[in-house]
């Protein structure tokens, strides 16, 4: 395929693929309470994920070593096993949230209860992983997810008060004394920088057979795709701020997340938004399932990857099957998918330093990346981010408990 077309496709896929259930719910909740005054968190989160995803992709493209191999080699098997356990729990939680999100979107599209859709969603996810080529899977989900742009359209269609928006973006009058505010800062961080994205970006680089020549593409995909994806997140928050805040809606249903689009663009807009949500959550369900398989197989030294036929990577596929069953099991207990989503972003925030520290270190190691070690600027940002992530990780659970998940 023509180089430019490939780059464009990569960017669009990254944009559409950026938003998942965690971003949808968290941005809607945050928007309904604070409008877009937490935009700075989205910006910081986007810069962070762009930096680190590229680093992880670079290490893979240049050394053939995936994130969890690196974690094992650098932290030692014992610490890495603990890290693996935590990462699996976080990613499984996120997977459960995504399957839940798929079912909720289907409920809103068809009126049929979500319980029916949980099983169907899991089967669809498994079938796609089993038999659909990686790049096709990524491109289709990503492009369909682009329909979430309907939130941006709705935002403008709702005729925002630009002075209010401007002052929110500047974070003036931000309630920095409120613990709930900081709880949502941490939650939004966790939603924007979920660990599975790094595992997936790194392993995806291998699936797409990236080598040294593709580093520039990786940079563009991440550097343009993620920020545009961040704009989608902000649109969701902005819409929620304009429509839900006034009605004092406490977002705890998927229908409330899309309500603003309905207000702005009617039934057509609503349908498009739901298709977008379905695509985004399906894409994320695929990515989190694959990530569960990736990290366990990479830690254990098992063959992994969709580029191998399943018979050549049997443990990898078995792990994913089991993870899907576990996610189904959790949802079958009647757990509310929205609540699961809210938990998953908080716990993602807790795990961020565990994932990111080894990536930063190895991206500087000539044994892995040759001459392409990080520059001073990237390292400067990387170290600062590690510090910030550690603070967020430590504060996450206490904040969650003290504020009762942001009440």
């Amino acid at each position, binding site marked *: 395929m023509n180089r430019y077309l490939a780059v464009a496709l990569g960017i669009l896929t990254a944009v559409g693929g950026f938003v998942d259930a965690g971003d949808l719910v968290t941005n809607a909740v945050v928007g309904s309470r604070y409008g877009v005054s937490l935009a700075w968190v989205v910006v910081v989160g986007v810069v962070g994920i762009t930096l680190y995803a590229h680093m992880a992709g670079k290490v893979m493209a240049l050394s053939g070593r995936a994130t969890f191999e690196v974690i094992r080699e*650098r932290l*030692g098997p014992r610490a890495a096993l603990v890290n693996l356990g935590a990462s699996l729990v976080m990613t499984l939680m996120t997977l459960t949230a995504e399957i839940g999100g798929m079912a909720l979107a289907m409920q809103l599209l068809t009126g049929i209860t979500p319980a029916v859709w949980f099983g169907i969603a899991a089967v669809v996810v498994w079938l796609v992983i089993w038999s659909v080529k990686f790049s096709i899977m990524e491109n289709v989900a990503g492009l369909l997810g682009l329909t979430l742009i309907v939130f941006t359209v709705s935002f403008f269609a709702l005729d925002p008060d630009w002075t209010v928006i401007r002052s929110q973006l500047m974070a003036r009058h931000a309630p920095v004394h409120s613990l709930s505010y900081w709880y949502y800062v941490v939650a939004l961080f966790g939603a924007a920088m979920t660990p599975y994205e790094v595992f997936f970006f790194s392993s995806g680089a291998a699936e797409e057979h990236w080598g040294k020549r593709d580093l520039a593409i990786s940079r563009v995909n991440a550097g343009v795709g993620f920020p545009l994806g961040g704009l989608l997140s902000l649109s969701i928050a902005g819409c929620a701020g304009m429509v839900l805040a006034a009605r004092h809606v406490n977002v705890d249903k998927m229908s409330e997340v899309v309500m603003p689009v309905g207000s702005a663009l009617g039934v057509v807009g609503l349908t498009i938004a739901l298709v977008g949500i379905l695509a985004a959550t399906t894409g994320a369900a695929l990515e989190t399932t694959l990530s569960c398989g990736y990290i366990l197989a990479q830690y254990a030294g098992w063959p992994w990857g969709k580029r191998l036929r399943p018979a050549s990577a049997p443990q990898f596929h078995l792990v994913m099957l089991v993870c899907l069953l576990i996610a189904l099991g959790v949802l079958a207990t009647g757990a509310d998918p929205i609540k699961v989503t809210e938990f998953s972003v908080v716990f993602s925030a807790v795990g961020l330093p565990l994932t990111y520290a080894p990536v930063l*270190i190895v991206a500087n*190691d*000539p044994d892995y990346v040759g001459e392409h*070690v990080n520059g001073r600027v990237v*390292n400067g940002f990387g*170290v600062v981010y590690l510090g910030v992530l550690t603070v967020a990780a430590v504060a996450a659970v206490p904040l969650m408990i003290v504020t009762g998940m942001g009440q």
Partner: protein
Amino acid sequence: MLLSDLLDRPVLCDGTAVGKVIDARFTLTGRASGPLAQPQLLGLVVGRRRGAAFLGYERRTTNRPAVINRFFAWRQRRSFLVDWGDVLRVEGVVELSPDFTRWSAQV
């Protein structure tokens, strides 16, 4: 003997504790054994605690990010290489000869 048995073993000289075995350095210039030369033991890397060595900063050409490097180099500031000739025994406790030389552990 397995490497894992050797690692973290206390290292003594004249009865005084000098550190622990944190690694074993081999050269690859010996007789070929298959595609690669069979690694021959050059010496043992001795230091305070193995845990702090796992990131390898104190010995590697990696010296970025500077902040992290400085932290780990400081933690491992007393690690050094001991030539195999200076090692009297490795069974039980590692015993060094009284006049052993401390070499740089830098790779």
